[in-house]
């Protein structure tokens, strides 16, 4: 089972879903920084946190810079959250996707529906113009 060359710190079969964190000093905005893989194993964790975030906030930034893999199940989680936030006058903004994740977002049409920017600070400005990153 030697695995000298991987492209992640952990082999995929050990993935237990993304680690998630929030910065919530502004009561209306939340920043999620998932890590790992948004696949069938990992996306449900983000879906749960996004649902919680959308229930308690109007503006949400998901920093994708530490996401190594995105499949349709992860796209579904992002779109559901974006709809919930839009319905209450809020917004979901994505930041920092890696090249392959950005390609998934582009070909799936998500890039035409949600703001996606390279930089987290810019994403926070887009999500809620008067917010400041406080983390």
């Amino acid at each position, binding site marked *: *089972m*030697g*695995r*000298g*060359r*991987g*492209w992640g710190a952990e*082999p*995929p*079969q050990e*993935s237990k879903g993304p680690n998630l964190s929030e910065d919530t000093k502004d009561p209306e905005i939340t920043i999620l920084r998932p890590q790992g*893989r948004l*696949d*069938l*194993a990992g996306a449900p964790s983000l879906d749960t946190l996004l649902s919680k975030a959308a229930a308690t906030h109007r503006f949400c930034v998901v920093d994708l810079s530490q996401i190594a*893999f995105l*499949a*349709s*199940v992860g*796209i*579904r989680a992002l*779109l559901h959250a*974006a*709809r919930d936030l*839009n319905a209450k006058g809020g917004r979901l903004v994505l930041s920092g996707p890696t*090249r*392959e994740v950005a*390609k*998934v977002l582009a*070909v*799936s*049409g*998500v890039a*035409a*529906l*949600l703001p996606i920017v390279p930089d987290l600070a810019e994403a926070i400005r887009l999500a809620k113009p008067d917010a400041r990153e406080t983390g």
Partner: protein
Amino acid sequence: MTEKPARPADFTLSVRATDQDVPRVHAWVQQAADTIGLDSSVVFALQLCLEEAVSNIARHSEGPALPVNLCLHAAPGRLTLRVEDPGRPFDPTQIPAPPAPRTLEEAEIGGLGIHLIRQFSSGQAYERVDGVNRLALYFDA
């Protein structure tokens, strides 16, 4: 170090068409990639296409989870991924591309998996042989 396979190599795996087996599929792809030396972008494409293909089989089948046989054939410059299941006939290559959503409200996930397979592989072929769905996906490597 990344080395292209100098000689053809085959890797096989048998799983069940359940979401729970997909991590095994990803691990199998990574092991094959480590053995033959594939770029991370190719690994990404293989894993994405397999996750979507296996979860599609799970979604379109009834009863107990179907057995799915996977074979990755690596030749210089070209990879062929074969996905076989004994479920009811289902030709994903005939599924039309989903319309590009104009609004979040319009966006539907149905058909997205097959769309991603088309975008991340260089070719697709389907045949039904002896009661088995045979999907072949091709990748440049």
